[in-house]
């Protein structure tokens, strides 16, 4: 029997609240299937299963908050015998067989309550802020016909007598999560920083030409070219890509790049795009678009929060020249890009105007040193110099 535990979705997560089971006992499951939704400080996260088999028993009911590592369900491996008298299409409410003498309720999968539906529903940030201002409990707000809790729904749910004002719940929780992860990073990881200012004019010129050829919906953001070049450069810098766990560095086989996505109203999340080194520009653009949309309004998957091997933080247009970010543990490096700006630049002995960007690497001195990061930056700059080859 395989024990399915509340996953850790980052160094900052201690517990999660089970929102909904998407499979019921007796359902076959395979690696990668989403079997549950868990509410965390980073919002509602879809939890994936990592084994093939049959969901045997559910040990945590919707609404329960359980610590990371606690067994929340059991999965019968493909080769394990069926439990006695368990049909393949068991009614959701049937109690599980061979249950341990546990005190956990037999959750089964009853229809979600309105509260669960509300927790599960998408809540717009404006609605969240308003709910905080009005003291409205979002768990009790019924979603609109489109499944979204908006301002209208929150204001309709306003208590008739004003209650004590509370800060917006989710943003506070997210800030706590960021604080926990970054305090751990600052406390435990001996950071070093290496920066280079890179002439990105060739990349921008190539992109403008490429986008001019493309129909509007197929155009690319320059961030995609950066991600592509980073992935290729990281593939040759294994000391910057992996996890540091229990005093050992575990290099990663692939580049699963966490992309720092800012939330409007504050906070950020860095879910990962898996195996970026295998993806071309168009595939990366689609992945990035999907990821940003799900960070802001939908749902992330557990693997996206736990499998990142390195993080990329792109400040973007009209921001600042340089960022010196903190590593997201247990990763060992983070790359930060400042805005692209026109600057005087010496080329062939003449001062010319070029579009440049300052790129910084924060590395973990337990694993690598500045020289390695400098080599990585040089490689990154070379790749951006020939964007047509990316």
């Amino acid at each position, binding site marked *: 029997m395989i024990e399915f535990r509340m996953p850790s979705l980052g160094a900052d997560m201690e517990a999660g609240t089970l929102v909904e089971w998407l499979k019921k006992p007796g359902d076959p499951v395979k690696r990668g299937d989403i079997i549950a939704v868990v509410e965390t400080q980073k919002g509602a996260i879809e939890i994936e299963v990592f084994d093939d088999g049959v969901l045997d028993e559910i040990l945590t009911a919707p609404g329960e908050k359980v610590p990371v590592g606690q067994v929340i369900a059991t999965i019968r491996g493909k080769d394990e015998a069926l439990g006695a008298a368990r049909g393949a299409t068991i009614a959701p409410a049937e109690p599980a067989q061979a249950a341990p003498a546990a005190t956990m309720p037999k959750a089964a999968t009853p229809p979600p309550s309105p509260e669960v539906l509300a927790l599960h529903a998408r809540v717009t940030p404006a609605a969240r802020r308003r709910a905080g201002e009005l003291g409205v409990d979002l768990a009790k707000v019924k979603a609109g016909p489109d499944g979204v809790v908006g301002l209208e729904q929150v204001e309709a749910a306003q208590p008739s007598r004003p209650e004590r004002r509370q800060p917006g719940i989710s943003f506070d929780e997210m800030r706590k999560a960021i604080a926990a992860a970054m305090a751990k990073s600052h406390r435990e990881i001996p950071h070093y920083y290496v920066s280079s200012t890179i002439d990105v004019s060739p990349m921008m010129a190539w992109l403008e030409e490429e986008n001019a050829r493309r129909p*509007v919906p197929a155009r690319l953001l320059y961030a995609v070219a950066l991600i592509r070049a980073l992935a290729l450069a990281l593939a040759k810098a294994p000391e910057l890509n992996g996890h540091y766990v229990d005093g050992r560095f575990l290099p990663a086989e692939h580049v699963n790049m966490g992309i720092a996505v800012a939330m409007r109203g504050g906070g950020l999340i860095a879910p990962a795009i898996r195996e970026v080194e295998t993806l071309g520009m168009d595939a990366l653009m689609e992945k990035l678009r999907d990821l940003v949309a799900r960070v802001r309004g939908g749902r992330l998957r557990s693997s996206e929060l736990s499998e990142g091997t390195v993080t990329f933080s792109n400040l973007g*247009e009209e921001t600042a020249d340089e960022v010196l970010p903190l590593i997201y543990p247990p990763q060992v490096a983070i790359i930060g890009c400042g805005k692209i700006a026109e600057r005087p630049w010496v080329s062939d002995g003449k001062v010319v105007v070029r579009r440049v960007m300052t790129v910084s690497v924060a590395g973990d001195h337990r694993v690598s040193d500045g020289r390695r990061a400098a080599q990585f930056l040089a490689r990154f700059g070379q790749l951006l110099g020939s964007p047509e080859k990316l």
Partner: protein
Amino acid sequence: MTDPELAELAKSTLIKVAPDLEGEVFAADTPFREQFEVDSMDLLNFVIALHKATGLDIPERDYAKLETLSGCVAYLKAKGFGK
């Protein structure tokens, strides 16, 4: 279409790609980036949605003209949309 109708079209198009802006008050002349912390992905999705809503081809060099509500109205009028 009148100017307010064009402004409403631009506003509803932006909300379509960034639903969390629902309920926000839009200033006519303040860049979306400054008002709502929209980023490059939001702006590109906005341009795509505006292209689909109007049928206009919007070259990349024109994106900067679409960064405010009033800019969108002026741009759509200049392109002859809604006449």
